[in-house]
């Protein structure tokens, strides 16, 4: 691994990284600002939601909607935050080595006395650091925000859901990294990894409705990350282990894939 590559990746993208952080904070602030109104109409709201078909409630994992964790879990962590972390992960993963190849800078980079593996791993580490940073910002933002709008939220549960969601982004980011290492095309890596993420999300959200989809859940990264409702139930050890294993295996495959590559001129 090469610290210079990690630092340079972070430095050259600090604008987009800050934009993601600001975006996360803005969405959290917006959701939290609306919570008091939701709470005020809690009785109505719960009644209203009780009228939803079971299927719909199951799809959006609406447990105890008017409670603080229930509200955040539904509005923030069922779709919004996972998709944002996936967007960050796939953007970074796809531009890792494939971005260098697309820009034509791969020629110089890979003719230097550094191994291909260390380039891939350094880029992977940069991606993980960015996801971690945005995750910390999100957790800090929500936890600071709850002070203003009286939400009962266990800090440990909040951290658990942020870590799990950021790692979900890392899984699909690693898919993009692998595809980029295999084919050297950024748009292809981005397109396929995003499509896979959306497919996984659909399979996850439809699973409560379609029986045979339920059988696929144990293989779905969304299930590993959010299936256990960490905002209610805290850290989900096995889920996190599956996520971490997926990241390790995918990055390992990316290292193997790039060794065999012929870089097109």
């Amino acid at each position: 691994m090469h610290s210079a590559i990690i630092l340079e990746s972070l430095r050259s993208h600090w604008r987009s990284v800050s934009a993601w952080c600001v975006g996360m904070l803005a969405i959290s602030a917006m959701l939290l600002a609306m919570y008091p109104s939701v709470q005020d109409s809690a009785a109505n709201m719960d009644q209203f939601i009780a009228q939803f078909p079971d299927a719909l409630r199951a799809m959006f994992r609406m447990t105890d909607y008017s409670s603080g964790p229930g509200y955040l879990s539904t509005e923030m962590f069922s779709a919004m935050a996972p998709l944002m972390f996936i967007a960050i992960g796939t953007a970074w993963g796809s531009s890792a080595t494939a971005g260098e190849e697309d820009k034509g800078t791969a020629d110089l980079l890979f003719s230097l006395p550094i191994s291909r593996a260390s380039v891939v791993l350094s880029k992977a580490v940069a991606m993980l650091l960015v996801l971690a940073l945005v995750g910390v910002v999100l957790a800090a933002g929500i936890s600071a925000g709850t002070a203003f709008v009286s939400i009962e939220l266990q800090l440990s549960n909040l951290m658990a859901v942020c870590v799990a969601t950021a790692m979900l982004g890392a899984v699909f980011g690693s898919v993009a990294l692998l595809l980029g290492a295999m084919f050297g095309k950024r748009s292809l890596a981005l397109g396929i990894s995003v499509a896979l993420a959306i497919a996984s999300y659909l399979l996850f959200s439809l699973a409560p409705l379609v029986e045979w989809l339920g059988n696929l859940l144990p293989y779905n990264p969304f299930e590993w990350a959010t299936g256990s409702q960490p905002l209610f139930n805290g850290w989900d050890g096995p889920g996190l282990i599956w996520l971490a294993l997926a990241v390790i295996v995918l990055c390992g495959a990316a290292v193997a894939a790039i060794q065999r590559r012929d870089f097109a001129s």
Partner: protein
Amino acid sequence: MGSPGAVPAIELADVTKFYGRSRGIEEVSFDVAYGQTLGLLGPNGAGKTTAIRVILGLIRATSGSVTIAGQVVGSGGPALQADVGYLPGTLALYEHMTGLAFLHYLARLRQRDCQVRINELADRFDIDLSRRIHDLSRGNKQKIGVIQAFMHSPRALILDEPTSGLDPIMQHEFESLVGEVKASGCAVLLSSHVMSEVETLADRVAILDHGRLVICQTIQEMRSKAVRRLELEFPQEVSPQDFHALPAILHIEAHGSILSCQVVGDETEVLRLAVEHGLRSVRTEEPSLEEAFLALVDDRNPDVSTRR
């Protein structure tokens, strides 16, 4: 100088590479010794860049072996590239960086301190390294490409179309820089379309055509194989008939007391016979490398097309 005895800086032995839709190279062999410059010539798509990319380990040879300083590329790990400088033919830099930040970044990845040499080269090529690369002209970007190839004082340099975009003054500066590093024992592989540049810098020339090595020899040897014009002046009229039989003569015609002929190869016999006829003076034009190159590649192409 070449301390590891006779081990060449760069050596290709029967290297074949097929890949994708692009034409590769077939059984190409050449070497570059320390302190020597090899010019790599050939029409577009002849495989020059493929050969260069195989040496750098950017693509892997299908068969044959590539060695740098006697070590097989790909087996010794990336450390092998530490003493190699590379200027790509299609140069892409990190546009958002300043020239200096870019050079420092590469130096850090090479784990070398190149500050002194960077300053020296920047002065020499008259470039402002504090500007963002994005804002630089093509020629100035090329200068940064040149600096990054030379800044770590490599033992072997691989230069692909190095002077494209440089103005004539900078081209001259570049030529003297290559001369200096060559004199200090650096091996230089120079791929270029600028014949005069190859003629000035190269000791030997390798010509690739359709992925095969046509020829690899010194510039003098190459010239001798090119068609040259010879004008022989005699005190009296001489019949061209007498010269027709000589193998070196391709074409001959008389203009009064002057015979003008096209010759190829060894011209000793022509001159001997001319002296017997009382030769008064000789005028000859040294064939340019370009003529020699064109003669070789033209000769070859009909041959290639009939084989298909």
